[in-house]
C-alpha cells in the first residue's frame, strides 16, 4: 500500500485552512493543457534537469550508470535510479517520485504539527491523490487518528466508491471546476466532466465541506457566459468558498526540465482583470469568491 510521492510543501498557506503540509502524489487521470504540475501526470518517477541551475560540473554524468546523465538527451536509457540527483551540487536535478509508506507520509506531516494550531494539518494533492486510493485513504485515516485536520486537493475524477470512503476522514475538499461543457472538458483535459460534477454533487449531498477552485484560463474558460454557468451549478452544491486561480505559465520550465512538449495555452495581458471580473461575477451570483 505504499504511495508514490512527487513532492512535499511545508508551510503551505493556500492548500486548505491554516498552515499545512502538502504531500503531492504522482499520477493524474487528466492531462489538462494548462497543467502547472506536469511532473504529477505520470505515476512513474521522473528526473528533471533544470539547465539554468547546471554548472556543467559533470558530477551527474560520473554518477550515472549509463554515463549520459548531464543533458538528459537519451532519456530512454534512464532507469531513474536518482544517483545523478544525489550527486548534483546545485539542485539542477530533481527526482519527482519516490516510494513512501503511509507511516513515513504521516511522520512528515507530523513534523510541523506544532504549527497547525486547530485548523492546519495535512493536504493530499497531486497529480490526483485518489489515483493512489489505498495509500491516500490510509494516510488520511492515520492523520485523523493523530488529531490533525485533513484536506484533499482533487480534480474529482475518481470512482464515487473511493470518494465515499473519504467522507469520514477528509475534513475539507479542494475541488477543481475546469469547464462546464463536457465536450470542451474532454478536449482540454482528456476526460469528460460528468463523473466529476456528479461526484461533487454527491459530496455536497453528504454534507462535505467543499472549497471550489477554478483555474482561470484566458479565452478558454473565463468568458462571462461560462462563469455564469459555473456559478449556477455551484449554487446547487453549496461550497464554502470559490477560489479563482489566475493563469500563469511558471510550469514552462518544468516541461522543459522533464523533456516534455509544452502544451501551455497563450496567456493574456490582463490576467488580474479577468480574475477580478470572474470573482465579482461569482460574488454577484451569491457565492463567496476570492482570488
Amino acid at each position, binding site marked *: 500500500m505504499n504511495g508514490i510521492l512527487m513532492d512535499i510543501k*511545508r*508551510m503551505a*498557506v*493556500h492548500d486548505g*485552512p*491554516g*498552515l499545512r503540509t502538502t504531500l503531492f502524489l504522482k499520477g493524474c487521470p487528466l492531462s489538462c493543457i494548462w497543467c502547472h504540475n506536469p511532473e504529477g501526470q505520470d505515476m512513474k518517477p521522473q528526473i528533471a534537469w533544470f539547465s539554468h541551475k547546471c554548472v556543467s*560540473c559533470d*558530477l551527474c554524468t560520473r554518477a550515472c550508470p549509463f554515463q549520459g546523465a548531464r543533458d538528459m538527451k537519451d532519456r530512454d536509457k534512464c532507469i531513474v535510479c536518482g544517483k545523478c540527483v544525489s550527486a*548534483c*551540487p*546545485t*539542485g539542477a536535478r530533481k527526482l519527482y517520485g519516490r516510494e513512501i509508506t503511509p507511516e513515513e507520509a504521516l511522520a512528515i506531516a507530523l*513534523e*510541523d504539527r*506544532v*504549527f497547525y*494550531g486547530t485548523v*492546519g494539518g495535512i493536504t493530499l494533492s497531486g497529480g490526483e491523490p485518489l489515483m493512489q486510493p489505498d495509500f491516500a485513504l490510509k494516510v488520511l485515516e492515520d492523520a485523523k487518528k493523530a488529531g490533525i485536520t485533513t484536506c484533499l486537493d482533487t480534480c474529482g475524477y475518481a470512482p464515487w466508491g473511493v470518494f465515499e470512503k473519504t467522507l469520514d476522514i477528509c475534513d475539507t475538499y479542494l475541488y477543481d471546476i475546469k469547464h462546464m461543457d463536457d465536450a470542451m472538458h474532454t478536449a482540454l483535459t482528456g476526460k469528460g466532466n460528468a463523473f466529476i460534477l456528479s461526484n461533487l454533487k454527491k459530496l455536497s449531498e453528504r454534507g462535505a465541506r467543499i472549497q471550489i477552485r477554478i483555474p482561470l484560463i484566458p479565452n478558454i474558460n473565463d468568458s462571462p457566459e461560462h462563469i455564469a454557468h459555473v456559478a449556477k451549478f455551484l449554487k446547487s452544491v453549496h461550497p464554502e468558498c470559490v477560489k479563482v486561480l489566475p493563469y500563469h505559465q511558471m510550469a514552462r520550465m518544468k516541461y522543459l526540465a522533464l523533456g516534455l512538449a509544452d502544451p501551455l495555452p497563450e496567456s493574456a495581458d490582463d490576467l488580474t482583470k479577468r480574475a477580478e471580473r470572474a470573482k465579482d461575477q461569482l460574488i454577484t451570483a451569491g457565492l463567496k469568491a*476570492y*482570488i
Partner: protein
Amino acid sequence: MLWNRFHKDREFLDLYENPNFPPETGVIDKDEASKAVAKIQGRSPDIIKAKACAFVLEHCAIDVNPKCWFGVNVAGRVPSLKYGANNTINQLIGKFFSDQTKGNPIEKTLTAMSESYAGAGAHFPDHVHYVPDWDAVLHLGYPGLLKRARDYRNKHDTLTNEQIDFYDSVEIMLTACIRFISRLADLAEERIQEDPRMPLRVKCLRSLESGAPKDIYEAMQLMHIHQFLGQFVECAQVRSLGDIDRLLYPYFLKDLYRGAYTREQVKELFQYFFIIYDFQKHSYNQPVSIGGTDIFGKTAFNELTDVILDAYDDAMLCNLKIHVFVGENTPDAVLRKMMAMIRRGYGSFVFMNTDIGIKAMEKAYGIPVQPHMLGSQGCYNFNIKAYPQHSNQTRINLVKAIELAFFEGVDPLSGHEIGAKTMPVENMKSFADFKEAFEAQIDSLTNQHIEICDFYDGIMGKVNPTPLMSSTFDFSMEAGKSCFEFGSTSVLMMGIGTTADCLMMVKKHVFDQKDVSITTLRDALKADWQGYEELQRMLYSDPEKYGNNLDEPDRFAVELSENMIRRVTGRKNKRGGQFICHFETIDRCFRSGRVTGATPDGKFARKPFSKNLNAAFGQDRNGLTAMILSASKFDTTLMPIGAPVDFMLHPSATKGEEGLDAMIQILRTFNSLGGYALQGNVLDANVLREAQKHPELYKNLQVRVSGWNWNFVDMTKEYQDTFIMQAEACV
C-alpha cells in the same frame, strides 16, 4: 494651518544633513568648538566631559526648526554615526581611551582579537549602549532630575573624590541641559512669526525649562531632546525610546479627554517625532518598544499603539525599529497590522517573546520579574527597566575556532598566530581528536575575549562618563557612580550555525564515511577550494546541516551553545555584575565573514557565515518551519540578552488574508516553542534583482539586516547578493 502638513513639511525636516544655524546663536565652526573643548581642564574625566558638553550646549550655535514640532540642533554635536564621529566630545573620549590603553599589556590581546587583524571576533568598550529610565525623565523633567541628584548627594555623610566628581558632573550636565532648553525657547520666540506652530513650541520649551512635561506634546519633545543630547552630545547611544505606548498613554488619554489634541493630531505628532530618527541615520536604527503586558497582567497594547503604528505606516520610515513585546494575550489584530506592513516591504519590527524574556531575566538576575518590568535595549535584547543593563564588549567568531583547529592556532588568511597550539591534523585519528583541538581553540578565544572584557569593564567609567544618562537611574544616583559602572557584560557568539555544520561535515565525511582525509580537507581549505571543487560541492550540497530539524547537526549547535554558556555565563565581571553569553551576529556575519577563510561546510573564504540562530545562508533547505524547529532546541531562557531568528518568506506564501493568518500562526508557534525573537522579510528575488538594477525605483524597499532594517538600494552589492540568494531559496 497647524495640522495635516506632515507630507508637505517632510522635505524640510532634515536638520542634520543640512543644518542652518543662525550665526548669532553661538559658535558654528566645528574646529573652533573642538579647540575650545580640547582646552577644558578638570580634576577627572567626569568633570572634563561634563564641562565639554556644557560648553557645546551653552556656547555653540543652536537651531529650532519651524517646520517641525520637535527638531532641535546644536553645532558642536557629534555627527550622525553613519558618517563617523571624530570631533568635539568624541575627541575627549578618544583621548581618555588612549590614556588607558597606551603601553598597557592588554594592547597585544586587543590587536590579536580585533576583526581586522585575524577575524577572531570584534570588540569595543561598550560605554554607549544604555536605555535611560524614561519614567524618571518624564515624571521629573530635567529640573526634577537635578533636584533628585542633589537630594541623593546630600544623603551621603561623606563622599569620596570620585563621588564628588560624579555628582558635580551631573550638576554641570543637567544645568547645561536646562540652559540649552532655555536657549531653544528664546530662539523659538525670536522665530515665532515663522510658523503657526511656533507659539506652541515656545510654550512647550518654556514648560520643560521649568519642570516635567504636562501633555503628550511636551512629553514627546522632552523624549526627543533627551535622545538627541544623549546620542549626539553626551555620546552614549540611547538604545531605546522605551515602551512608548505605555509611557505616553496617560498623557494621550488626558489630552483626548480635555480636548487638547485629537487622535489624528497625535498621529501627526508621531510622524514628525519618528522621522527625526530616520534623518539621524543611525546605522543600527533607533529602537523603541510597544506592547507587552501591563501591571495587571493584561495586554499593554492600547489605543495609542494603534496611533503609533498608523503614524509609522503612513510615514514609511526605515530608520526606526520597533520591538514588539508579544505574549499570549497579544491581540491578533495588532499583529495583523504589523504583518501586513512587513508584507508590503517595510516596517522594521522584531517580535520579542515576553514569556521567554521574563524567564530568562529571572534566571540571569535571580529576582522575580513581572511582565511589566521587561524592557528592551539595542537590537533585540530584553532588559529590566531602570535596572543595570548589559554592555556588549566583545563578539567571538566561533567559525574562526574551526579554522584554528585545522591550522594549529594560526589564522590561515592572515598568517597570525592567535589561538592555542593544538595537534597537527596529520595526527588526528578520530573526530574526538579534532573536537579536542576545536575546544582548545574555543577556550583560547574565549579567554582572550574575557581578558578584554575585564579590561574594558575596568575603564568604563573613566573613558566615557555619562552624567546625563546616569542621572535618570536611582541606582546610579544613590551610589554616586556612572550607570556604566554597573551591569552585566555580554559576550556575543557569532556563527553558531556554520560552526555546527563544520563539525558535522568533519565528523561525517572525514571520520565516519572517510570520503576525504583530514589533510586533504585542510589543503582544500587553505586553497579556498581551488583544485578541490568537487569536494567543495559535495560538502556544500550535503543536506545534513543545522536548521533543517535534523537531529545530529542540530545537536552540534545546541551542544556548542551549552558549552559556551558554561564557559561564559555567570562569571563575575569587574563591575559587580556577571558575564552573559548571547547569540546574535548583528551584521558581523558579513563583516567578520570577510576575514574568515574557507570552512568544511563548503563555504568559500570571505563569504558570510550564519546569522543569529539561523542556518548558514542557503542551507535551510526544509523551509521556515524546520528552521524554527531547529532553533527551538536551544534553551533560550539561558540566553537572556538575545537569540533572534530571521525569516524570509516569498510573497506567494503570504498572499491574502490566509497569508497574514499564516504569518501570525508562525509567530505564535515560534513563541510557544520558546523562541526569543523573530524578525524578517517578505521578499521576491526578482524584485530585489530589479532594485539592484534600478535603485531609483525602489528607494523605500527595506530588508532586515540584523536587528535593524536598511534600504536595500543603500546596501553594498555583497549584502544585496546575500539577500537575493536567500530570497531565491524561499521560492
